[in-house]
């Protein structure tokens, strides 16, 4: 490759993509007309580009708007307080945190709004319950054992909380919900996104989890999930 070829090397892709000015494009064409090596390189780059253009456009398989809309309608981070009404049992890597929430119950039809309160983890308190502004009538009650046959996207599953974990990178929290603590193989994984700010329930507590039903078929997973969790309330 001579010095001139080196000068034209980077511009070759710009020429291929029609991004060169008219004068530069003309000079490039004059060079290509006289340089077999650069012509060959141009052909190879064009072939590589054509490979990529064969890839199909992909679209989401699921309708993602309903879950997104619910997440957006959820209240933002609760106000911090030291009321200590709810327990926080998750051991986060960060220092202990205190979140204050305004507690109230507003009944509008079947809608329930309960703000969350989280206390310092060194002060254990009552079992946690938290939810966001959701219309529970829109969620179909599904038994954990029957998730395979469920086709509804918005479900409520009831069970006992086990196996809590926190993703250190993004702050998302997961727990398993089992219908019978003696049969842990029958479970649904519940994922609380950090952006939605729902309080994690205590291990062993019986809760109702509202959220979007999905199947995680990733390598090593292959389980049903409630993801994202949109609300949690005490079980009955």
């Amino acid at each position, binding site marked *: 490759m001579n010095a001139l070829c080196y000068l034209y090397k980077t511009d070759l892709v710009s020429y291929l993509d029609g991004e060169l000015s008219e004068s530069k494009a003309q000079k490039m064409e004059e060079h290509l007309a006289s340089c077999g090596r650069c012509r060959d390189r141009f052909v190879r780059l064009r072939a590589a580009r054509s490979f990529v253009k064969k890839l199909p456009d992909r679209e989401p398989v699921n309708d993602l708007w309903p879950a997104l809309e619910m*997440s957006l309608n959820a209240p933002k981070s609760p106000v911090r307080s030291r009321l200590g009404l709810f327990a926080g049992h998750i051991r986060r890597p960060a220092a202990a945190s205190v979140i204050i929430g305004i507690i109230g119950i507003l009944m509008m039809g079947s809608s329930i709004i309960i703000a969350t309160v989280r206390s310092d983890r060194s002060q254990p308190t009552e079992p946690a319950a938290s939810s966001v502004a959701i219309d529970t009538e829109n969620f179909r009650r599904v038994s954990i054992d029957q998730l395979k046959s469920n086709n509804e996207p918005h479900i409520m599953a009831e069970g006992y909380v086990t196996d809590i974990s926190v993703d250190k990178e993004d702050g998302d929290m997961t727990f398993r919900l089992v219908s019978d603590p003696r049969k842990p193989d029958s479970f649904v994984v519940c994922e609380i996104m950090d952006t939605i700010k729902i309080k994690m329930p205590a291990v062993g507590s019986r809760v109702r989890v509202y959220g979007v039903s999905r199947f995680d078929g990733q390598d090593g997973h292959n389980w049903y999930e409630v993801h994202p969790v949109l609300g949690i309330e005490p079980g009955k």
Partner: protein
Amino acid sequence: MVIIVPITGWKKFRMLLSNTFSMISVPASEDRENESLLVTAAKLGDGTACRAIFDLYNTRIFNLIYYNTGDVISAEDLLQVVFFKVFRGLPGFRHQSSLLTWIYRIAINECQNYLKRRGLRYVPFEAILGTEEEFAPQARPDELRAATEKREIIRLALMELSPKLRSVVVLKYMDDLSYDEIAAVLDCSQGTVASRLNRALEKLEKSLGPMRGLL
């Protein structure tokens, strides 16, 4: 300033934007004005405006995320995170770029964060159990398999590129952005865009060139 648009007006408005933005990626001045109205309404919490923005851009952003991450499930998750951040961050959007450019930036950052968390060794679900196309009943099995395998070879070669090179390839050759637009998304110069595309195509040609006759 409160903008009140009747429902019928929103439907027409949405159609206008959908037709406009499907043709060009960087709006002309009139389209910028329309986009500005939409963003203003969304900032005020108008659910219809938010839905319109989502409908306008989600497939393009999904395409970018999918070809950056390599699997549908993760891409759907990330798409939700991206748009959640878009709508939560909308009050801070100052129209210094087009809305789509801004959304692309958020998506690129989310992909990079996700790839760092995931690590380099990862086998997507579809690579193990197959994609929907492989089970489509209408095509003959051998034709379908051959077409799927060709696309999979190309896709895997794309996944072999570094995230930086992969992003420019997807933005340019799949989303059809100009160098100028890509530079705005990636916050770099057009020369950097050209340089990355150059390197990316050279690497792709090295992996796929020997199979040119088959692909």
